[in-house]
């Protein structure tokens, strides 16, 4: 390497070479640097005519840029957006944009052309120096720190130094607590562990809110469901909806495999499952009627609705929670109660909120074949 060559050649550079070179090999017999190759003049350096032409080209680019900018202003007014006309939005976008692009690109091409054809292209060499300061500045820096220490007594007066460190360590701490009110006073785990479903809440169609009659659910059909009580004008409408969306499916009863525990949770082959994926919480929206598979579009977790919504593929680890349903006097589908476990993605304290009377929630029904 050249660096070493120079070092071998010039004794004053030995200082640099005392830096540990680690396992780098010293090449004893390497080629010496022939130096920068001679400069090759460009066409524009030799022929005045070519130089003139390049100058004209640069001028043309700048002229085009001006035309583009003027056109952009023209387009802004000449092609306005008209109410309810999507086409006018597109035209405005296109023509204004093209004008601006030309305004920018013209300057860009012109300047680069100027630099390449007309400005000197002779390569210049600048020396490098070791990055660290000179011996003098380094000594001076050390001296300054020493002076600072002596004059303040930072090392000597250890009591006040240490108490300063203590104070500095403590003063940001209140800021940490001040973030408590980022969220409401209520306990986080309590808040996310209940949904708006209550005993007797009717299942309604999402988004219209029309209650669903059991007799209207034909075999093979699937419904996106919300609780009838959900108030679309409430301030927390989306929060409640995010907790309570359910997918309702009817299949031939003989195809439905239910555990003993959950025998009473379905009605005539109609089952209802939380629509929030147990992986990281996307809505599990794609139902495949013939396989009874429910597919999450986010990461392809696949749940088997005919078999307790257990996971058949994908990164989700638990079945979707099931909503126990029944039918009321008027034949409408209702919830028997809230889910027996928190819906949605897993969290640290999840097991605290599994209904004791229904220990056989998804955490346990899951059969990992």
């Amino acid at each position, binding site marked *: 390497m050249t660096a070493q060559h120079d070092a071998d050649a010039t004794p004053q550079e030995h200082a640099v070479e005392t830096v540990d070179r*680690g396992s780098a090999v010293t090449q004893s017999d390497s080629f010496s640097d022939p130096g920068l190759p001679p400069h090759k003049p460009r066409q524009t350096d030799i022929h005045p005519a070519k130089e003139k032409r390049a100058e004209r080209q640069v001028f043309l680019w700048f002229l085009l840029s001006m035309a583009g900018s003027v056109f952009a202003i023209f387009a802004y007014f000449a092609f306005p*957006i008209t109410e309810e006309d999507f086409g006018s939005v597109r035209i405005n*976008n296109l023509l204004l944009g093209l004008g601006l692009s030309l305004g920018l690109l013209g300057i860009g091409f012109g300047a680069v052309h100027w630099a390449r054809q007309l400005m000197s292209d002779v390569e210049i*060499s600048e020396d490098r120096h070791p990055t660290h300061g000179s011996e003098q500045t380094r000594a001076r820096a050390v001296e300054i720190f020493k002076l600072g220490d002596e004059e303040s007594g930072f090392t000597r007066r250890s009591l006040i130094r240490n108490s300063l460190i203590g104070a500095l360590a403590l003063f940001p701490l209140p800021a940490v607590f001040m973030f408590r009110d980022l969220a409401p006073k209520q306990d986080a785990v309590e808040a996310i562990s209940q949904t708006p479903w209550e005993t007797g809440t009717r299942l309604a169609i999402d988004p219209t809110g029309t209650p669903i009659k059991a007799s209207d659910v034909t075999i093979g059909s699937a419904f996106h469901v919300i609780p009838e009580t959900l108030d679309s004008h409430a301030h927390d409408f989306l929060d409640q909806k*995010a*907790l309570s969306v359910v997918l309702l499916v009817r299949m031939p009863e003989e195809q439905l495999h239910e555990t003993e525990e959950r025998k009473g949770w379905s009605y005539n082959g109609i089952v209802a499952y939380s629509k929030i994926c147990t992986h990281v919480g996307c809505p599990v*929206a794609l139902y495949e009627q013939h396989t009874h598979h429910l597919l999450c579009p986010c990461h392809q977790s696949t749940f088997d609705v005919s078999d307790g919504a257990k996971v058949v593929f994908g990164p989700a680890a638990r079945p979707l929670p099931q909503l126990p349903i029944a039918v009321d006097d008027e034949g409408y589908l209702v919830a028997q109660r809230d889910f027996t476990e928190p819906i949605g993605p897993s969290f640290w304290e999840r097991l605290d909120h599994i209904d004791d009377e229904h220990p056989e929630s998804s955490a346990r029904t899951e059969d990992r074949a």
Partner: protein
Amino acid sequence: MTTTRAARKTSFTSKASNYLDERTSISGAVSFLGRKIFPDHWSFMLGEVALYSFIAILISGVFLTFFFDPSMTHVTYEGSYVPLKGIGMSVAYHTALDISFEIRGGLLMRQVHHWAALLFVASIGLHMLRVFFTGAFRKPREINWVIGFLLFVLAMAEGFTGYSLPDDVLSGNGLAIINGMVKGIPIVGTWISYFLFGGLFPGTEIIPRLYSLHIMLLPAILIVVLGIHLVLIVVNKHTQFAGPGKTNKNVVGSPIMPTFAAKAGGFFFLVFGTIMLIASIFTINPIWNYGPYDPSPVSAGTQPDWYIGFADGALRLVPPGWETEWFGLTFTWAIIIPIIVMVGFLMLVAFYPFIEQWITGDKREHHLSDRPRNNPTRTAIGAAGVVFYAVMWAAASSDLMATHFHVNVFHVIYVLQAALIFGPIITYFITKRVALALQKKDREIVLHGYESGRIVRRPGGEYIEVHEPLDEYERYRLVTFETYEPTKERPNAQGRISAGVKIRGALSRWFFEDRITPVTQSELEASKHDH
């Protein structure tokens, strides 16, 4: 400095410069910076692309802030986009629609902002690869590598917070995924999510909060960190490829004034102009097609912005059932493991310069860019990392691949799971072999010249190809590189070899066992005598 001349020849510029200098001593800065030298290579422009697209982001972003309102208050749409009339939505989504449909140039600025953001992260990624493969992260530039890494992370954070602002179905769904991931973090996850969203998901706080981050905190940090990055580039001076006259002790190229300034300034306009051109022709993020956020619907085949893909893909590659319940607590490995893998991968990237320096033990300053072939192991490691990232990234499109190639999406995932493990290993070996082969070829060329393609018949009857010898400049470019040999494991004062030394020895062997040294003068002499 110009006082005497200015007194006589009072042109406006000289008066103005004099006025300024007498109040700021700016001539010092001009004389320090004005003729600084920048070496020229196409790959050195990638960082510039990042810088210029960031400026485009700032300009278009400020325009958007004048019209965008991040509130999550529920309103009914009354704007001029017919399909959404009468639909309930947040103010944030409403104003994002208004920017697109009521304000002339609003859609254009949104598209400029989004395209520029995509280009920004892409150019940062490529810039980082350039620095890696040329070894430009070595002393004294390790700190600037780490700073650049921070910029990469900040850029992704900016992108994600921005993507979440319009409150359409896709952006809300992205937040739902974040919510789920945060909840999977042991011990604190539930609470972090609760604080982040100000209660339940989605709540009414998250978008205003992300907005503060997106337009204030993150850009402020980004600009400061970017400033340090640029200052360090001036302090360290740019690296250059070795060549005749280009050594570790100089920097060869064009001076800032005028050539580099003209090229770089012009290039800014080219980058901005190209972004503008793309934004005027191609739609990006048509939020009006997605509808306002609602926790219920989602459509298949939707994609996050490209730079979030690797995280999404990492989640998809987890096999079923990765969760355990211990002591009544839930350990969500399906989330914890991908997070650890991603963070671990990013940490390796961030600290690579220190690892390599520890292995070589080389404490000297390095100002010459390596040609990637001349450090085969590093290049192979880099290529393996790229493949690892690429597989995760590809996994984010597993469903699209399945529908496009008419295969089962489950099988796509199985293949990608295998690729995640074996892909980097195979890539490592292939890349290393290729790099060594290229080095051998360089040696051949130095020793025997270029193959000219001209065949001549020798007097003896045999045919040979004529080899054109190299001129000394070309030759010097091919023989100027540094090689290392495996370190010897030296015992310490007690005569023992510590574990650290052993590990380092092993790593050093792994790095430098296969190596090809540059041709020396005597080798060239010898090869001439062979003929």
